[in-house]
């Protein structure tokens, strides 16, 4: 805030404070991290109490599909980060392409996820299914957590896509431009959050055998 010794006249009221907006966004990201943090605690507790069953159940996930999805998300983080640089340099069309690409990658992730979940349902593994209930308790917990955590993450992917579409539109209409792009930054931050949560989900469910 500009602190002149004479006080600030009323007209100066409509101020822009990107630092403040960014601060708000970071606080929001904290809350999201803690939301998932609760789930990570639950995961840790049950992994500790049922190590063998978790081991068994993890073998049933398809590591290949998981890896592909990880690569997709990492790439999308790259594209969205590049879009900020493009915007800073005033290359609007390029920025648009990059944001569009990010949205497309997000969609690809969801399609993969859809088939992955679909396959599990096909073989009778879903919460409360007779097949799952016949398994040891640790396996039930593992898949309960798997569906909840990847499901909640997918929900965040969808929200992230909506945010990016809004940003895309704003760039197109010119309300986000080379000297005012804090909304693009916030959208990208949100997208990185979606990415980072997956970076933890992937090893916990697919790799840790």
């Amino acid at each position: 805030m500009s602190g002149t010794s004479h006080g600030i006249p009323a007209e100066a009221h409509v101020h822009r404070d990107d630092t403040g907006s960014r601060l708000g966004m970071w606080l929001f990201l904290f809350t999201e991290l803690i939301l998932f943090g609760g789930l990570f605690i639950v995961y840790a507790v049950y992994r500790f109490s049922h190590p063998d069953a978790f081991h068994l159940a993890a073998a049933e996930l398809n590591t290949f599909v998981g890896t592909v999805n990880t690569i997709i998300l990492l790439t999308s983080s790259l594209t969205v980060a590049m879009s900020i640089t493009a915007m800073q340099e005033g290359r609007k069309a390029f920025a648009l392409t990059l944001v569009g690409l990010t949205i497309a990658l997000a969609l690809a992730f969801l399609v993969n996820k859809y088939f992955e979940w679909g396959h599990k349902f096909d073989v009778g593994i879903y919460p409360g299914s007779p097949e799952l209930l016949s398994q040891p308790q640790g396996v039930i917990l593992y898949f309960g957590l798997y569906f909840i955590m990847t499901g909640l993450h997918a929900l965040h992917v969808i929200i992230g896509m909506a945010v990016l579409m809004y940003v895309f539109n704003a760039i197109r209409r010119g309300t986000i431009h080379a000297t005012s792009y804090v909304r693009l930054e916030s959208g990208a931050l949100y997208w990185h959050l979606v990415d980072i949560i997956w970076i933890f989900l992937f090893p916990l469910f697919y790799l840790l055998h």
Partner: protein
Amino acid sequence: MTQATVSAGARSRGFYGEKGKYSGIRGWIFSTDHKRIGLLYLVSMAGFFLLAVTFGVLMRLEMLSPGKTIMEPQTYNTLFTLHGIMMIFLFIIPGLPAVFGNFLLPLLIGARDVFFPRLNLLSWWLFITGGLLALVSVFLPGGAADTGWTFYVPYSIRTNTNVLPALFAAFILGFSSILTGLNFITTIHRMRAPGMGWFRMPLFVWSLYATAWIQVLATPIIGITLLLVALERWFGVGIFDPALGGDPVLYQHLFWIYSHPAVYIMILPGLGVASEILPVFARRTIFGYKFIAFSSVAIAGLGSLVWAHHMFTVGMSYTGMFVFSLLTFLVSIPSAIKIFNWIATLYKGSIVLDVPLLFILSFIVQFSIGGFTGLMLGALAVNIHVQDTYFVVGHFHYVMFGGTGFALFAAIHYWFPKMFGKMYRKGPAVLSWILATLGFNTLYMPFFFLGYMGMPRRYYDYLPEYQSFHVIATVGSWILVLGIIIMIVNLLYALKKGAPALANPWGGKTLEWTVPSPPPTENFATIPVVTTGPYDFSEYEQRPAEHS
């Protein structure tokens, strides 16, 4: 700044006269002005409060005699559940921050609004949605939830009552609370008037700041926990269901990881109000400003580490119990620091015994009783004896109602002239204070004895030997309610017929008193430049103001 300027706003209607995009009720529910949003919260919160008080009084009527007095056991179960949910999520958590924080934070720091005004309006909408959802659940088939406000599993996943709407109500209310916290932190960081360094902020702002951090950092945990219970009910995922391998104790941990810090969301702003009011009516600089400010932060930090003291009887390692008990005792240190500082502020002050100070005096005594009984509960041996008895119910009513509730009464009497530009009559206000304090203590003091004798909480029936204490308590509830009614009638009367209020009726030194009552639309014509600390009463003091 001169004290006696009659405010121009007393004659104009300040921000009430604003011609916005909308008029009538829509001028309120779609307004992004922090003052209007604060008043929206005030009205909605007061409605929920009165309803929950009614439930409380009905419960007390039931407890007048052993056996069935006026209601069935199931009705009693739903009443304490609704009473708890509404009092916690709709009254005491949003009470001070959302009502007074919204109205006053920008005024106190010399700003024109909060940082995210539209987000602020969204918070209110979420608040009212959550509140209405909680009410609607009562009337849906299945009946109101009967789990207690704690939603403990496995009962909450087995009962056939409307637990889901109640869970979602709490979830939405949590979201609203997060957004308010986020908004306040950003506002305090970015919008303080020039010259207002961190240690020139009024102490209420410090307490809002600490509260906001807890709101932001703790609330998501309750969000995910309640969501898990909902998923458990829908799909039977097994996380909390012992039949599928889930661990109900884990639920309790997650619940209290939020809900204990939430207790400090409830009390910290109350402590802030006390620090705001005391110096004004003692005409002295607050004693130990920095200690009070940092103790808020210390309470917020330590308070996040004591959650398992609600669970001493569920089965925990002795090391765990020892550590949690020790941490519980440590929280009392910053709380006591505040009380000592307040008393030192009063000492040798030129005390003006006006209504806000009276409520604060009740607050200090009652909060101390609540705090001491909290220490008794934190002691492992005593805890085993009184866990889940009326002792606990007495303790938390003393802290939440005797503490925060009375701080809220003090706040409304202190800032009423500023908010509405009208003065209330002092006589009825003092009477309401006498009745509320008397009634409150008659109602809850017997709870400690009952609890110590073994009266369990959440029971609609009891053994005959408990009756005398129950009768005293029920009579107390009538006195208390009489006091509350007089208070409300007095304030409503002032709203209609009260004399115009001065800009600064109490001689306060913080920035809200430099603008007319009620404040104009954008608060400050020119943003003030701050050159002193918030409680500069040196003109009243012989010696130069103490600096700490």
